[in-house]
């Protein structure tokens, strides 16, 4: 269980990126976080990853307060951030340096197969396409089998087709290992297709404006009417949160 207990984050320059964030994420749940630019989504993930400290409140994983990067929490950034001097295989095994060699090789092989890149094990990052590089980044974060995986707009730089394929890869990984997923996204369709729950955030100061449960069975058909309706609900909640902030009607698309 991931608990966020009235977490505040005020940056040294005075920006209140998060104020009183409360959240409970169950084990194995997939939570999507949407919201306009600058509402503190990345800040929240950085706190949960232990890369930054909350100014007040705390974040706990199974009772233990997170104060620094934790082996049970993995994070995937918007860019793949692969190390260019390591091959795909070595990148994926980067977090496994302390494991015995045989185990490391097995874990790397397993997760590379899951993302469909077993033939690329010996390639350099420069030889990969954007989507492949992001798959390697997902594999690297998942190789040590973290309990919680945080994803910060991991697919936003990719075309719709590649993105859809990566959703399938991510879901297949989720079925295999059942990690808790917290996915920040700007894409309502992505949120509706993947998540059990969608959190809509609102800026100044950053907080949760609405929570939408997505009670749809998997596998979901991204072109089906249910997803269509869910997208509309999320968009509507986003629109409302933005309107509340600026005090005027805004097209939600303008904020995304």
């Amino acid at each position: 269980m991931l608990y966020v207990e009235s977490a505040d984050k005020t940056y040294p320059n005075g920006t209140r990126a998060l104020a009183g964030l409360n959240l409970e994420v169950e084990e194995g749940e997939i939570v999507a976080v949407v919201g306009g630019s600058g509402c503190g989504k990345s800040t929240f993930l950085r706190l949960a990853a232990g890369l930054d400290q909350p100014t007040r409140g705390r974040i706990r994983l199974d009772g233990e307060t997170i104060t620094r990067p934790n082996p049970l929490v993995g994070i995937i950034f918007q860019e793949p951030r692969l190390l260019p001097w390591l091959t795909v295989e070595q990148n994926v095994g980067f977090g496994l340096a302390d494991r015995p060699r045989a185990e490391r090789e097995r874990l790397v092989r397993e997760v590379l197969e899951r993302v469909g890149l077993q033939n690329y094990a010996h390639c350099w990052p420069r030889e990969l396409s954007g989507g492949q590089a992001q798959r390697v980044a997902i594999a690297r974060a998942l190789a040590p089998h973290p309990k919680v995986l945080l994803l910060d707009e991991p697919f936003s730089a990719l075309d719709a087709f590649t993105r859809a394929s990566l959703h399938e890869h991510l879901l297949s990984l989720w079925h295999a290992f059942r990690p808790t997923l917290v996915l920040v996204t700007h894409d309502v369709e992505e949120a509706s297709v993947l998540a059990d729950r969608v959190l809509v955030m609102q800026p100044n100061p950053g907080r949760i404006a609405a929570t939408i449960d997505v009670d749809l069975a998997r596998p979901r058909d991204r072109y089906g009417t249910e997803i269509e309706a869910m997208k509309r609900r999320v968009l509507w909640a986003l629109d409302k949160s933005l309107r509340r902030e600026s005090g005027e009607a805004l097209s939600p698309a303008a904020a995304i």
Partner: protein
Amino acid sequence: MTAIERFDNLGEARDSRIVSATHPIIEKKSKRTAERFLLGLALPLLLGIGWELAVRAGWAEGRLMPPPSRIFLTLYSLAVTGELWIHIGATLARVGAGFALGVIAGTLVGALAGASRLSREILDPSLQGLRSVPSIAWVPLFILWLGIFEESKIALIAVGCFFPIYLGVLAAIQSVDRKTVEVGRVFRLTTPQLVRRILLPAILPAYVVALRQGLGLGWMFVVAAEFMGASEGLGYLLIDGQQLGKPDQIIAAIVTFAILGKITDGLIASSSAPFLTWQDAYAPKH
């Protein structure tokens, strides 16, 4: 088959092709390297042959600019008497010692300045000031301090090598991407692990460039050092050739400098190449 599955299969087909296609690409690259090598050789070869023919045909005199055959003859006779090797040995020893000192000092000071802001703010302004002094200006001082023998020469070469290496190391450390370092933090690397697994590989390409620049300056300064009085060394051959009016000896020494400079630079490049194959821009030099 859904659209996504179809897409994935397309991806697989592409995968196997990419893997099998790696070899021809490498072959093509080395062929291109050979082609470039021959193209680069064409101009000096053509000029040399042209000059040789011109002198032999009597169109030119060739006293101040001897034809290639005379230069080779001079080189050959210097080599068989063993004189050439003594000069090469003396010069190489000076460059080697000066370069080694410059590399050690430049790397340590650069790393120190890169590692902490306080030491950078203390060191960098003074070093930048010293850097703007033309290094030859140190010669009189070094001679006073260290005498006219080997020590002052090596000190001059070391100073020449120091600055590009110091600057290269400092700039390389400062330009390491914060985002890459964060990857290390996510995987909970300790500071020594962070240095070994992220910082060192990240600065290596720039470090190799700095070493090559430093060595280039080392070769430049060894000539200056040997001009200030030496009884052996390629710089001495130059001066000696001038004083005795032997242009063939001067050009023979210049050719030797060019060859040695190219070889030592190639040694740095090729010994670092196995560690840099990952680089996007790196083209193998075989």
